[in-house]
């Protein structure tokens, strides 16, 4: 009886030995969305629409001119 129980335990433990193994597949790098895709939120600046890459480019160029004091004060003497 005890030998049978021991054998059953051994068989069961051998059978379940791989059940706790986690898959080891490398997680691929996630794909990133384009910033021009938005999403539009209450904090979005400018009038460009989400998904319009050309308008987003124009928004970036306009926004960059905020760093140019000559575009705000006019040409220097």
């Amino acid at each position, binding site marked *: 009886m005890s030998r049978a129980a021991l054998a059953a335990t051994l068989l069961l433990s051998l059978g379940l030995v791989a059940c706790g193994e986690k898959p080891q597949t490398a997680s691929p*790098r996630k794909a*990133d*969305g384009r*910033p021009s895709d938005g999403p539009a939120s209450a904090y979005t*600046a400018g009038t460009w629409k989400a998904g319009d890459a050309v308008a987003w480019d124009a928004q970036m160029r306009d*926004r960059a001119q*905020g760093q140019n004091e000559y575009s705000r004060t006019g040409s220097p003497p």
Partner: protein
Amino acid sequence: MARMKFICDAERCIECNGCTTACKAEHDVPWGVNRRRVVTLNDGVPGEKSISVACMHCSDAPCMAVCPVDCFYRTDEGVVLHDKDVCIGCGYCSYACPFGAPQFPSNGTFGLRGKMDKCTFCAGGPEDNGSQAEYEKYGRNRLAEGKLPACAEMCSTKALLGGDGDVVADIFRNRVLTRGKGSEVWGWGTAYGKPAEGKKS
């Protein structure tokens, strides 16, 4: 297509660390991590120069080249970003980077080195644009909001310029041509006007 770049004008930087503060506040950057910092050369000596340094989003980024798990990627706008879910925090990128941009937060009781953190050009990461998950891992995604990096936009003297490389290069070129160089840039005459002929100034 925009190619995002930073330029720092060493003639204008006054070492106020406003860029560093803006970055920290905008992205809730943890204690001990500085995505941007101001470096001063010849500190305390007349003529000292300061420059604001962060990830320069290199066109041929050495961090990308050495990363053993290939967690880096470059967006269509030329911004070098990384996936924190893939990063193993090994630190190779920090050895490769000439600007010291990669930062490693100390996590846990024993100061375990965490996953790499660096300037994202305010473009977030691979999570959904503007999502909470993106904010928690990478900070705010200002580019998806039609804005430029907070550090450059907050710079009081406009020493730090950020945006499309062609646009910021034009701004910088115009500025340098206008102000000239050498003694005409600074000094008494520039500040108060040159003394008239035959008069005491």
